[in-house]
């Protein structure tokens, strides 16, 4: 894990640029996660101080939302849709295949830090279920074979 001292200036910068925004906590957390990939637990104190909140309040918000994470993600994040439309199109088999291929469960990262696996509930791509995202890209009608190709393509860009 990276040392917080090197991340702190980035966090303070983000806090600074959101000073006058009403309801700024979520935008701040997004800003930090977009830049650093996660919200370093040590950042919570700085956020709390800047927003006149308790650390518990900030922590409570981070843990309420599925999207925020406090550990570094793998190089690539794969999100698999678990919701009904994707289930109706063999999403469960795809989920099992993904877990087996990557050797990890949801909310885990492979030991080589290449892949993190997350569950999502609908990507709005239900017309072409089952759906997954690889980083920012969404893919539809994903078969186990297509999944393997996408993983191979990620490995190709090491």
């Amino acid at each position, binding site marked *: 894990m990276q040392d917080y001292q090197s991340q702190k200036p980035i966090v303070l910068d983000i806090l600074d640029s959101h000073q006058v925004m009403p309801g700024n906590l979520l935008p701040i957390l997004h800003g930090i996660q977009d830049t650093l990939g996660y919200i370093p637990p040590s950042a919570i104190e700085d956020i709390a101080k800047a927003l006149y909140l308790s650390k518990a309040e900030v922590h409570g918000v981070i843990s309420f*939302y599925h999207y925020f994470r406090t550990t570094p993600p793998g190089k690539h994040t794969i999100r698999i849709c678990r919701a009904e439309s994707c289930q109706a199109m063999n999403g469960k088999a795809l989920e099992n295949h993904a877990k087996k291929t990557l050797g990890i469960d949801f909310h885990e990262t492979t030991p080589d830090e290449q892949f993190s696996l997350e569950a999502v509930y609908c*990507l709005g791509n239900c017309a072409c279920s089952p759906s997954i995202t690889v980083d920012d890209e969404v893919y539809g009608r994903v078969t186990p074979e297509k999944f393997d190709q996408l993983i191979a393509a990620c490995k190709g860009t090491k």
Partner: protein
Amino acid sequence: MARLFISRDSTALSLGADNVANAIKQQADSKGLNVEIVRNGSRGLFWLEPLVEVETAQGRVAYGPVQVEDIASLLDGGLLDGTQHPLCLGNIEEHPFFKNQHRLTFARVGLTDPVNIEDYIAHDGYQGLKNALNLQPADIVKHVTDSGLRGRGGAAFPTGIKWNTVLNAPADQKYIVCNADEGDSGTFSDRMIMEGDPFVLIEGMTIAGLAVGATQGYIYLRIEYPHAKIALNQAIESAYQQGYLGDNIQGSGKTFHLEVRSGAGAYVCGEETSLLESLEGKRGLVRFKPPLPAIVGLFGKPTIVNNVISLASVPIIMDKGGDYYRDYGMGRSRGTLPLQIAGNIKYPGLFEVAFGMTLREILYDYCGGSASGRPIRAVQVGGPLGAYMPESQFDTPLDYEAFAAIGAVLGHGGMVVHDDTTNLADMARYAMEFCVEESCGKCTPCRIGSVRGVEVIDRIIDNVDKTKNTELLRDLCDTMLCGSLCAMGGMTPYPVLSALNHFPEDFGIETSKA
């Protein structure tokens, strides 16, 4: 120069639309052919995406689904002149799936360049705002009330009544909040509007601001929609540049500002008060009502919270009049509903139609039955909190009251189709599991009830004290229905009980009719 249209809609992208666009550009360039590629919204015929349309003297000609491998033969065969090819579909607006729709809210989606404000205006955009700028706030509200528009986010509450409450709430500051959380599985109409015609939402929100005296709007957008965020921000920027947002809208002296805020993957934040908490930077705990958000909403101020489709339907109402919109539909369900048909279905897509069509017509006449070719066993309408409807209910007309009368929900108009390989006891279990996952935790029937629900369903499936546990499950559903603070806990029993009632055999329960 040939003008081509290839969609930037996420579902088209998920099938490779970007690769197709890039390859066409490259191959055309290398042949010395001059092409301009417009990245439009999707026409909503998703089995035909990536769809390529070319502008010809006789109108647009469509080809699809186009893969990168097809491009060489398409270009050689005269794609750019709209000539015949095995993938040629002719004018997509003449396709039976498209032709039989009533495209009011979606009039421009797929037709125009979504982020080009001139194109928007050239296709009747901002006509509604122009009319609204000449009206008193109460008259704008009256048009919306007259249209019969009811909230498309799920609860179907009359939009005009909500607006009137905010109009009459005195305050120094009011807000317009667009609920773009679209958490329901099987739904994507909000996304298609935001990606395919973001200006119509911006215009609708601006009119809402004029109607109630609100000068600030927020679009609360789910994080799962990155492409919608890009399109919205591009459109907002250009609306500011052209004086359609800001401090002096079209020289009227009226102010409206608009900003997109991202959610963070919590289904419950689609519930309006949870959404407001989230916008304020807090955990998305559902608030007690009353007070209504219309009186005490965002930052304690009177606030309109409306779904994307509700707001995006306002411009056409203000352009053509409340009567025009109200003349579509049946009973108390006026206007159109953009249906989203997904799951195990041959021709999935977006189908905007006046209320009144039956489920059976949609599923079989337009969507071709299941994708697998097996019999359709159940359709879940209205998202994860909607009931599973068996074949015997397929003749129900799409109408809020007709659905409610049989314990079903039309909601946001999503339908997820399951064939006969789906086990409905598994789906009931999943519904409870989803509630465990997404409960905000504020009230006990939902927080604890859902955990118990999973356990009880497991016992029924495992054949442990089946009769006793089935009774227990019904009891538990009753408690959740009556005792939950919001529809998360309050409606999770819909999918569960409908599965149990219509498909008892999946729970291993003998049916008396057998």
